[in-house]
């Protein structure tokens, strides 16, 4: 039982830190609220969707920005998508970086774009790690037979 309590505490702390450090916002809460018996893996599902989508987008972005003649429209569209999906799961730091990214796109500033891409990648990997940790903790908790702490 100790393990469960400990895990629960860990999970709570981790989640709190995620919100506290601004990786996530209330949107994520909403997601979590949407999760119920009928959709037990809803959050994980959505978040992994997000991961897939984001990775695809980031790859395409990197590819697009490597081109000799950068198609800013395309880049902009990708960033827009990324922004949309990140805001949907509440990954607000990723979303925040997307805003200057789009501005650079509008200005057609390749350096700014590249810089932003790096930032986005960075933020994305951070949030990915954090979320994966979160899910791992949750899984452990479930494996240990505990229930989710009330948020």
């Amino acid at each position, binding site marked *: 039982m100790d393990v469960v309590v400990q895990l629960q505490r860990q999970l709570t702390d981790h989640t709190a830190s995620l919100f506290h450090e601004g990786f996530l916002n209330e*949107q994520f809460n*909403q*997601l979590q609220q*949407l999760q*119920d018996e009928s*959709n037990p893996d*809803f959050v994980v*599902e*959505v978040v992994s*969707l*997000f991961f*897939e*989508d984001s990775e695809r987008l980031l790859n395409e972005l990197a590819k697009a920005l490597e081109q000799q003649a950068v198609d800013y429209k395309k880049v902009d*569209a990708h960033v*827009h*998508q990324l*922004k*949309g*999906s990140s*805001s*949907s*799961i*509440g990954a607000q730091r990723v979303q925040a970086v997307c805003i200057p990214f789009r501005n650079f796109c509008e200005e057609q500033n390749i350096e700014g774009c590249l810089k932003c891409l790096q930032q986005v990648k960075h933020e994305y990997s951070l949030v990915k790690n954090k979320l994966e940790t979160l899910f791992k903790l949750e899984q452990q908790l479930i494996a240990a037979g505990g229930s989710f702490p009330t948020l």
Partner: protein
Amino acid sequence: MAEKADENHCGSSEYCSPTPSTPMGTPLRRVLDRISGFASPWKRSTTPRGRRIFHRDVEREEFEFATTHCLSSYYSVFVARLAIMVMLAILIGLLTILTWHFTRVYTTKSLNNLAYGLRNELLQRPILRMWNILNSTSEITTVQLKLSEYVFKRYNKPATQAEEVELYEAMRDVTWALFASRKALNAITINYKNGFVQAFHRDHKSNNTFYIYSDLVNYSISASGSNDMNMMSSHQGSNDQSIHGNVSAIWYREPLDPLTGVKIGKAKPIPPDDLIHIAGLPQVPDGVASWHVAVSKSIDSPVLSAALPVWDPSNKSIVAVVGVTTALYSVGQLMKELVEAHSGHIYLTSQEGYLLATSSSTPLLTNSTMGPNLTMAIDSEDPVIKMGARWLQRAFRNNFPPNYEVHEENINLGGDQYYIDSFFLKLKRLPMVGVIIIPRKYIMGKVDERAFKTVVILISASLCILFIGCICILILTNGVSKEMKLRAELISHLDARRRAEASSNYKSQFLANMSHELRTPMAAVIGLLDILICDDCLTNEQYSTVTQIRKCSTALLRLLNNILDLSKVESGKLVLEETEFDLGRELEGLVDMFSVQRINHNVETVLDISDDMPKLVRGDSARVVQIFANLISNSIKFTTSGHIIIRGWCEISNSSVDAEKFPFDQKKSRCAHKMKWKQQGNHMKKACKKDNRMILWFEVDDTGCGIDPSKWESVFESFEQADPSTTRTHGGTGLGLCIVRTLVNKMGGEIKVVKKDGPGTLMRLYLLLRAPVDGIEQNCQVDFAKHNFVVLLALHGRVGRLIMSQWLHKIGVFTLEASEWNELTQILQELFCARKSVHDNGFDAQCSVSEHLKAKLLKIKDMANPVFIIVFDIGLLNLSTDIWKEQLNFLNNYFGKAKFAWMVYHDTSNAIKMELRRKANVLMVNKPLYKAKMIHILEAVIKETNLEQQKKSSNALRITKEGDQHECLEIDATHFDTASSDDSDLFEMGGPNSVKGFHTGEKQREGITKPCSLGYKTINNCLEEFTPVYSKENDSTKRDPCQIRLNSHDAKDEEPKCCTKEASFSIEPQCENAECEGRNLVSSCPTQQGNLYSSKAVNEQKSLEGLRIMLAEDNPVLQRVATIMLEKMGAVVIAVGDGLQAVDSLNCMINAEDCGRESLFEERKTRSQTEIKDSPPYDLILMDCQMPKMDGYEATKIIRKSEVGNGLHIPIVALTAHAMSSDEAKCLEVGMDAYLTKPIDYKMMVSTILSLTKRMA
């Protein structure tokens, strides 16, 4: 900066200096320096100015950019200026030089030619003289010779002494004759072979003439005749000596009369020293003539002596030597004369250089021990001659040109310049050189002087021109540079303005974008507060607190709406609607509303709209109403007593109609304003004619505190209030008028505060509104004149009463006025008692009515069968005590004689209303009386009278007409309360606003009508007796509520037969219901809202149960989230990836339905098949705006297009990441019904979907 400028100058002056006009270099530089001096303080002074200007708004970099920009322009100006100046300098310099050159060089050349001629001439003359002298001397000599020969031939071989003497005598005579004939001769000598000498000598100084002869005794012809020629030549020296050394020979001199030659004195021996030069044989050694320059003792000038031998004709031997001596004195004299006339120096020298004659008076001879000697020219005492001779010697040494001719100019001799010319006189044995030295000054002096003066004048002139030119350039370029500076400033100003505008635009845009975000929470707050207020378990204190919060939040929402409206207008996002609406009705509604809201009963609100005002206009009714709501609320705020009049008239009418139309005292001012605004009106009219627009004029006239004329313009600025202290007393933000003005301007109108006679403010505005498309207005007004109405206006407000009575008068209705109870009773008594007395053939004189009234009463008496209508203001009753009941009883007496229309206040107590109804006084009208209401009253009375007449023949039916009428009027009023309060921001009702928040800003009108219709629906539920027509009308939400009202009214009016007066009592509860309908409506919308929330609270999970929703979203994450969200609420979600799929699936569904394959949708078992057939395949579509392949806008357009055929309308909700209202507008433009922003807000989505689907249900 300054250094750079200095460099510039240096460069330019260096550039200048090599120009040919070297003397101009320095002044030029000075001028340039001065210019630079001008320029630099100027620069210094302008720069900080620029700083001052730009510092405020623009960032520092910009300013720096601007300054450098300015500086560079300064430099360019400066360089241009310098270049122009340099060019000018060069030009002027060239001009000067050319002028100088031409004037000088040509003059000099011609002068030189002349001078050369002159010098030649000058020299020629003494030389000619010299030549003459020589010639004459030689001539004389020759003559003497010939004569001597003749004489010798005559006395050939004188043998005797006597013969010899005779010969000598003859010779003497002949010689004298010659001598006398030539005055210029100095001496003639004859030296005989034997040594005898005869000579005549003329002393020019003493003017004496002498005869000189040697002692005859010592000579004999024979003695010396042996001398042959050879001996003579070989022993020249000894012979010479024999003569000179012949000391023993005695010379005699005897003076002669110079004219006659007669001896006048005794012959005296003369000392040898005094002897004149006598030519002897030695002078003619080879027997030819010889020339000789000698020095005479008697005169200081050299003498020229010529000697010729006299040959013996026979033996060819020399018998005598004839010598002639001429003084060169005269040549010198001539020279002197010439020089005196022409200045300069002339001298003659022998070839050896001895001076023969000079123009100067210096002695030509030097006295040495050897006696006087000739001087060399180089040793002359005259310095000029000396120097000239020296120069010649130096210059030519002995290499004189072949002919010895020298012409030299500008020889510097002792500091002065001279011309030196020499000529060579080639005489045999006596070559001579003539030299003339003329100072340059003499010939060229004037010329030089002139040339110098010319140069000076030219230079000074050119300097002046240069200076003036520079100044001109400076002035000119100053203007240019000023212009440039201004232009630069202008550019930077424009830039700054652009930026400022952009930033202000950003602000507006931001605010416009924020509208959604701001209004939504406010709506939630208000909605929740309404729920809370409805809650029963609140204590009184809590209730009051919540009410307070409710009020505050409404106020906040109002403020928010104001700001957002303003920003919307400013950011140009406000799009005015073009819908047909009844302007008069809107205004009436407004007036009704304000009369309800107005607390102060001292202020009457009067609506005075002229009859020519078109009934229907096209425009944005909500905005028009907002304009007037703001104006009226403003007026109400500042008016404590008096009246507020809203006047309206139409521009189309000509002024004659106008004058008739306004019998009120504003006629004058109206004319004045007409003049004032005529011009714009005129050109507006032209514009209006084109697109069927009309100009509608309005005035809002109040008797409030007024606005200071200086603030008339500024009150329309945002956040501006005429008196800042009013914020404390009246509150408000000062946005109202600003919004009004922007809206008015947007509608192509203008608003102004106009001068007014009395206290208060008069706002005048005009609007450009389109006339309705069909254009024809039905002005089928009932002709009230034929009904013989007599209207007794027993009304409280003076102005309203006056206007009403005037209007009634105009349409042919007779009016009487009473402002208080006593007056009314008096008139009533007069009216009806008098009528009686008329019947009694007597008029009661004791009645103390005024003459005016009397006249009226008399007129009324003349009327045949008049119908009396008493419009009675409840306010005339004494409501403070119970007297009113008695008053009513008193009035009851007249019920049969006149129709009563009761003007009730919205807060009139129910007791009075009940009492009135009890007395069957059902024609009750809410207070502000305006034309439409009056017309209703009149129509009602007409119908009633008709009914009364019918009643006599037919029997009664159930529903009273009055009841309907009453109800209509009341619904009318309250309805407008609801509708107009939405935008008026004054009515404390959040329901419509909050709903509006969910909807659009642009389609506000629609937004207004929707909640209203919803409101009606709720009313429908509670008013079960209501005619089905009404609810049906309500269901057709697309229709204008006015229309609904009218229709329902008409619908009821169609059944007038069923109306009986008796039955009126039975519908009393209905009336009651209708009456509180106003309240209900006020609260119904919030309640509706509340229901929405509460229902959600009750079954939150399944609020969307049974709805089929298509979700078009490309983002998988969002798609998933939204799907789950919707499914959680029980909706069936069909998700598609892009717009194309959405359209396809929709088409396929429709097709599927057409094929009867409804079974595809198993989940919709709950619905019957017929339902499926009737309704669209989806209840709602959530459409992302930005999607690949086909975006949301495109998809919506296609869907809407396809819907045209089948009459369906699937609500489409836009999902967009842009929260900007432009996107919103775009969404709505393509046919979407609402829009949601990403990330999706759960509640918002639910409420939006519910509001859209409910409507469809």
